[in-house]
């Protein structure tokens, strides 16, 4: 099932579904890249709190989404990685280096605002 992407001001919000398959993830990647341009979005929130598994393919795709969005001028924050999922990711050897993460949606939004604000002022 495709992931719905909501536009909220200059941000995009996508909540990933539990039965997400590889095609849905690839489609999400393409749609985020396209929508960031169409809506001139400055930030993206990917909510993965429903996901009970983040395997190597999903992790790599999330990282690719964040890197692609950054090349298009938007920062991405991944929010809601569940504790068991985080444990499994570490054992698997998966990292999300260079990608912003936050505990939940609210903290993710704060982090996103701070990051966008920071980059506005030339990082200072």
């Amino acid at each position, binding site marked *: 099932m495709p992931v719905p992407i909501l536009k909220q001001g200059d941000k995009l919000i996508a909540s990933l579904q539990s*039965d*997400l*398959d*590889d*095609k849905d993830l690839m489609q999400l990647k393409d749609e985020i890249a396209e929508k960031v341009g169409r809506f001139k979005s400055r930030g993206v929130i990917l909510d993965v709190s429903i996901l*009970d*598994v*983040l*395997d*190597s*393919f999903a*992790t*790599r795709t999330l990282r690719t989404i964040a890197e692609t969005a950054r090349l298009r001028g938007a920062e991405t924050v991944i929010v809601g990685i*569940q*504790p*068991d*999922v985080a*444990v*499994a*990711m570490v*054992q*698997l*050897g*998966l990292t999300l280096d260079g990608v912003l993460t936050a505990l939940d949606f609210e903290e993710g939004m704060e982090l996103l605002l701070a990051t966008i604000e920071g980059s506005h002022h030339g990082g200072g």
Partner: protein
Amino acid sequence: MVAEETYVPIDRDGDIVSARQKARELATHVGFSGSDLTLIATAISEVARNIVVYADHGEIVLSAVQRAGQRGILVIARDEGPGIPDIERAMRDGFSTGRSLGLGLPGARRLMDEFEIVSEVGKGTTITMRKWTR
């Protein structure tokens, strides 16, 4: 009532999702909880994806097993794909010829208690994994 053995055909990427859902059901029935359920589901996801990416189709058989009063889950992932010419290399972190991170099989080995892989070029690959309740 959950069956003690479940067979999941793996033919397309959507089957990876069903394989880990069925594994989670059986593992819950066996008595696993919390993070172990996630570790098992993640390991299954990796071996199932290996089938989809390299062999096109195969199957995963999940069974409840016992050893000296301890309950566990047995996972057999089988395909008749091209086989793995150099298993030692495939089991090394970071090695990949497909669209993975190269962490799939070595990662799955770390997530489970027991892991065996038998592969013959031109004949296919069978991965046998077990995890025991604590």
